[in-house]
């Protein structure tokens, strides 16, 4: 009996020692030196730092569905929910504000000598057709694209959830399918006008003088001035970037993985909102910003005094060409 009691006391003492020892050991020493991703105590951000993605094996044909969590998706969500709307709002509203200020301070750029009553052909029917093909598609693409970024905040309270869903569905169809004539238009613009859009020395002088928009000087220019050349390259390069990134999104996972899709969406979004802002400036100067400018894309013919004021080198070239043609023509 005495022995049993002694053994019991020893066992209790050993247990107490073990408990004391476990309490006395620092907490950090109890943790494994490396984070165990499968442990329930691991925090989500620790897990994401350790693993680029969490995936598994699945039996359906779409292997991408095996990716349960892709942490980069959180950065992407932050971009398209927060960053992109801010960039878009600043770019578009900022441009609108600048144009309003510019119009109020500078006003419409007038034809200084007034209309001459004589006209000169600025753009032929095919050039105007390509311009309007690209422009009309761009307007629909811009509205339907901005709907993706801003529609839920702006339109859904007005249209209601069902109305907004229907509108967005048709807007997306228009966005997808009108991208093809838009891309065709950008390609035709490149081929049609690149010969006049290459930079030269007159562009430097034009830019130095602010293109005649700042002050009252009208620096000489050939068929396209430096501003129009810049616009040309913005349309071509911006259009190409928007088209390529857009087609990557339209044909998901044909050419890219998840990260590629996210990058394409970011490029498409940023290029698109900047494109819209730049086009607002283009529309302004082609309509209310400059007297006589719209006619070049309206009827194709511009007043001779307008042409001499803004594109004197081009007028000289056209005159010389027509003189040469008339001299070379056989006498009747």
């Amino acid at each position: 009996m005495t022995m049993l009691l002694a053994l019991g006391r020893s066992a209790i003492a050993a247990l107490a020692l073990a408990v004391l020892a476990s309490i006395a050991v620092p907490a950090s020493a109890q943790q494994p030196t490396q984070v165990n991703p499968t442990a329930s105590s691991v925090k989500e951000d620790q897990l994401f730092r350790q693993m680029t993605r969490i995936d598994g094996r699945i039996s359906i044909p779409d292997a991408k569905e095996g990716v349960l969590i892709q942490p980069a998706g959180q950065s992407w969500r932050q971009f398209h929910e927060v960053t992109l709307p801010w960039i878009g709002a600043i770019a578009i509203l900022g441009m609108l504000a600048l144009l309003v200020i510019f119009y109020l301070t500078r006003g419409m750029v007038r034809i200084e000598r007034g209309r001459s009553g004589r006209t000169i052909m600025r753009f032929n029917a095919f050039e105007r057709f390509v311009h309007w093909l690209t422009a009309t598609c761009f307007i629909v693409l811009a509205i339907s694209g901005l709907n993706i970024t801003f529609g839920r905040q702006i339109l859904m309270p007005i249209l209601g959830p069902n109305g907004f869903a229907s509108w967005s569905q048709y807007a997306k169809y228009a966005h997808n399918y009108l991208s093809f004539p838009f891309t065709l238009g950008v390609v035709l613009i490149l081929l049609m006008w690149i010969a006049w859009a290459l930079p030269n020395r007159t562009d430097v002088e034009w830019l130095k003088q602010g293109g005649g928009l700042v002050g009252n000087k009208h620096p000489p220019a050939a068929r396209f001035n430096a501003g129009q050349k810049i616009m040309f390259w913005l349309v071509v390069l911006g259009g190409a970037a928007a088209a390529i990134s857009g087609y990557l999104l339209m044909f998901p996972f044909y050419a890219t993985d998840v990260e590629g899709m996210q990058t394409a969406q970011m490029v498409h979004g940023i290029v698109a909102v900047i494109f819209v802002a730049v086009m607002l400036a283009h529309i302004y100067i082609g309509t209310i910003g400059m007297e006589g400018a719209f006619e070049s894309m309206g009827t194709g013919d511009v007043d001779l005094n307008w042409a001499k004021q803004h594109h004197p080198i081009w007028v000289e070239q056209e005159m010389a060409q027509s003189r040469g043609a008339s001299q070379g023509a056989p006498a009747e």
Partner: protein
Amino acid sequence: MQSFLAACAAAIAIAVIAGYVLDSTVQRPSSSAYTTTGAEPRS
């Protein structure tokens, strides 16, 4: 004005043709694109 109207007509025509080509050749409904043949719903 004629150029503008012609451009609008051309844009709509190209878009309709592109939509028809995509729907008939490239695109598949998700019910068939993302399922195994054994689980494919049949109407």
